[in-house]
């Protein structure tokens, strides 16, 4: 029986304003170990908000989010930061590498925050960058890498902390088709071989085609949940 990694129980998010906007509306969701899940839907459907709440970056207005059984809604801001550091890997749409650090240092950064010893860090960084095909770009700064290469470093960084799962918010949105295909190959391989759980938000058909499970959101509600 597979382990339930993510569980949302009737989570909603309402953005207050002159006209309150319900971005996510009572979503119940379970994601298990080793899943390769895409959350899809049109712009404004609530994909990013749902991902942010799962990742502890945003708090639901109601309902709860559990990661490996731990309820995130009761954690303080600092506890959430620690939780994200040790349990969740993030890949962002615009790569968001630290510009002053090279590929090796960017990948190593999370492990430094975790106070992992240097020998272990070095070995893991080398392995991860080799896995994403950038073993020869360790010393390159983000400005010296293409968009696709930067996103692959971001994937390596996300995996460096050995997270429970990786959240990727539109990871291919800024990539050309070759880089997209390359990145998807890497993530699929990591999912197959290493058992890494990936949850994407996307409206890129190429990503949707590769996903093993596709959850469609419309107006903040799950419209369909298809396992391939």
């Amino acid at each position, binding site marked *: 029986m597979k382990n339930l990694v993510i569980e949302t129980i009737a989570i909603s998010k309402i953005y207050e304003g002159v006209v309150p906007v319900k971005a996510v509306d009572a979503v119940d969701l379970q994601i298990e170990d080793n899943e390769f899940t895409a959350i899809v839907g049109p712009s404004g459907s609530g994909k990013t908000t749902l991902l942010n709440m799962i990742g502890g*970056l945003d708090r639901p207005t109601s309902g709860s989010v559990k990661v490996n059984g731990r309820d995130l809604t009761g954690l303080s801001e600092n506890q959430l930061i620690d939780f994200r550091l040790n349990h969740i890997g*993030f890949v962002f749409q615009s790569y968001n590498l630290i510009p002053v650090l090279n590929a090796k240092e960017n990948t190593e950064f*999370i492990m*430094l925050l975790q106070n992992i010893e240097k020998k272990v860090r070095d070995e893991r960084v080398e392995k991860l960058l080799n896995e994403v095909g950038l073993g020869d770009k360790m010393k390159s700064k983000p400005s010296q890498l293409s968009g696709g290469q930067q996103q692959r470093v971001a994937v390596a960084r996300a995996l460096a902390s050995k997270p429970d799962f990786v959240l990727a918010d539109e990871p291919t949105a800024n990539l050309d088709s070759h880089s997209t295909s390359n990145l998807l190959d890497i993530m699929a391989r990591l999912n197959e071989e290493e058992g890494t759980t990936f949850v994407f938000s996307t409206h890129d058909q190429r990503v949707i085609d590769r996903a093993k499970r596709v959850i469609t959101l419309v107006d903040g509600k799950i419209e369909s949940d298809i396992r391939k």
Partner: protein
Amino acid sequence: MILKLAWRNLWRNKRRTAITLASVFFAVILATLMMSIKYGVYKNMTESMVASYTGFVQIHANGYWESKSIDDAFVLSDSLKDIINSNPKVTGMVERIEGFVLSATDSTTKGAMVVGTDPKAEMLMTQMNERVIEGEYLDGADNAVMLGQGLADYHHISVGDTLVLLGQGYHGTNAAGKYPIKGIVKFGSPELSKQLVILPIEQAKIFFGTEGSITNLVVLMDDASDATSLAKSIGAEVDERYEVMAWPELVPDLVNMIEADKVEGYVFMFILYMVISFGMFGTVLMMLAERKHEFGVMVAIGMKRSKLAAVVFFETIIISVIGAFLGILGAFPVCASLYYNPIPFGGEEAGQMMEDYGMEPVIQTSIEPHVFLDQAMIVALVAMIIAIYPFLSILKINANKAMRS
């Protein structure tokens, strides 16, 4: 990691860093030069006034400085001499008898202060012989006087003329004498110049009838800044019959003048550093705005906000310390050059004015370490104050909101 990130972040925007560095650099150069000149002037004033006459430390019978009465004279005992001579900071001492009298010629009278002193010791300690502008320096055996230039001018008398001194001697005796003028002395301080009459100490003892007592024992040393601690250490060893005073107590007017001038310098420095601070603060605000998204990402992936705040804090500190260091490095050769090669004060009137205030008419700087270290500490303090805002801002940062910025 924090320092590495801070250091590298500084060089992301080289032009902005260079401009900030330059502003700190020039502020520190300007402030250091200003304070170096001021402290040089203070030293000049102190040495002119203190080393040339007052001495760094004086010992009197208890209460003499308040009464200034010849009746409060004391006998210099061997035990007191031993206490003073055993102190390693002491380089010498001069015995004096001071008393106020009426000086008179056939047509003029004026209040004066008679200083009975050992001409030889005075020559070694205060180089009074170098201040003789007319006639000759006194010999211990002379029965003659030297006058301050101002007093001689007042009486319209010169070398070879006679001066009559009338006053009250020890325990109510009459003090009266008639002395030939052997020399005219020029003192830096106009006050001294207008009232001093120098008499060999043995003649002064006879004149005042002190029966071997003296009123002042002037203690000399190499470094004026040690005077207060020397006075304290001697004061701790002597009994209550004596008072031991350092030069700041002996010439409070000079101290007050220096303190007032320092305040003026501090006001100028405050304005200068305020201007620089706002410039630096603007840079920090710009940097915060530009990197808000990045800060959000770093917190999102698990960097503690306190660590991130420390990175930005160190960025501000590092840039300030480098700027201050370069500023001090730039200012030191100029200060050192002016210290070893003082510039004569241009203009006769300005030079005369400085002389009237008891100073050598030169611009000389100070190269004491505190002149430079003070600036480094001020810049570090300013940097720390400036760094508080980004530090607090980052401590409150919300990763999600910051990433959306």
